[in-house]
């Protein structure tokens, strides 16, 4: 049995350093259902810490938690006491017995690595900071890589692109945006980061230009599956023109990758409008 202190320490480590954990808390139960309110179980890939009463419910919650981790989910879910997930408000209200579990994925803030400190990089970083990401900006020009240029929390690195990127730690929680001053730098940067398992790699540029870059790297022997995973041209198709609009388009794509979704207007009217603009 894990103590509250152990659980608190584990959550702190998950939030600071990772790896991510799905924290599952019993928050409610229908009258008459035997459930320990406040019981907590931390679900990691491959092991659990703490328990929420054992049996099929605990097994089902652990399985649900494990699947929640890559989705960065934070959600209160309803289960029957024998471990069936109940979805939809009507089904939950009409069920005889429900146990409510808050499943929240606890993990360090994701890193937004922006390669290129120009107008687009500046706006992309600003929006990333607003979304709670740890922003890192890299440029080799001092005018574009100094703290004063970025009026938000960002780690600004001025140095050689190749060297800096080689040293930079990249994990599945790192989101990389290549928006440097030219395709030569983008190509160099992509060569350095493509095969290192980032959560997202996007590269700005026209279809023609980006295709040329991908072709060069393929010829050099960069893993073709890694190149297939590069989002280029970068961003969602929302007709973005200004650097700020491009930042919305890029961060929209990053949210899509993190959370999943249809990337369509929610409304019928919006979908019709988007169709017309194609």
């Amino acid at each position, binding site marked *: 049995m894990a103590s509250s202190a152990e659980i*608190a320490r584990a959550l702190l480590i998950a939030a*600071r350093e990772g790896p991510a954990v799905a924290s599952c808390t019993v928050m409610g139960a229908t009258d008459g259902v035997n459930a320990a309110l406040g019981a907590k179980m931390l679900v990691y890939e491959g092991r659990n810490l703490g328990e929420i009463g054992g049996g099929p419910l605990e097994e089902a919650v652990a399985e649900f938690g494990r699947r929640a981790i890559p989705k960065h989910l*934070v959600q209160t879910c309803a289960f029957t006491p024998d471990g069936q997930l109940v979805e939809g408000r009507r089904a939950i209200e009409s069920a005889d017995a429900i146990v409510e579990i808050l499943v*929240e994925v606890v993990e360090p803030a994701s890193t937004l690595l922006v390669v290129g400190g120009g107008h687009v990089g500046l706006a992309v970083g600003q929006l990333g900071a607003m979304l709670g990401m740890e922003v890192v900006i890299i440029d080799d020009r001092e005018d574009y890589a100094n703290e004063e240029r970025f009026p938000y929390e960002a780690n600004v690195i001025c140095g050689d692109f190749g060297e800096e990127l080689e040293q930079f730690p990249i994990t599945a929680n790192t989101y990389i945006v290549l928006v440097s001053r030219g395709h030569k730098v983008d190509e160099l940067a992509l060569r350095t980061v493509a095969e290192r398992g980032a959560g997202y790699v996007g590269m700005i540029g026209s279809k023609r230009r980006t295709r040329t870059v991908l072709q060069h790297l393929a010829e050099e022997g960069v893993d073709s599956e890694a190149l297939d995973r590069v989002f280029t041209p970068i961003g969602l198709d929302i007709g973005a023109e200004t650097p700020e609009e491009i930042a919305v388009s890029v961060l929209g794509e990053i949210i899509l990758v993190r959370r999943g979704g249809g990337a369509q207007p929610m409304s019928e009217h919006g979908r019709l409008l988007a169709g017309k603009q194609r």
Partner: protein
Amino acid sequence: MPQDEVYEAMSSAFEQGAPVALATVAQTLGSTPRKTGAKMLVREDGSFVGTIGGGCGEAEVWQEAMDALDDGDARMVTVDLTEPVDGEDKICGGIMRIFVEKLEA
């Protein structure tokens, strides 16, 4: 949303053997200032870390947290932000269900 401040405050309270009350947004309906998972940790002296949404219902939840520290019972608190306060316009306009529990090492 990183919650490491809350977890840090919880860990250090437990190291000193002090209990805390933790308020966590379990569910939101309509427009609410914070979303599911937002947390506020309340210590026995009434000081707190984190927020579940500024003025909107936070005082009420803080009081429930103090009560939970007292009686040890976990509870679900419903904060209805659709009621206009003293003739003012509704600012938030949603409903939050907040789980309040006492935790100790």
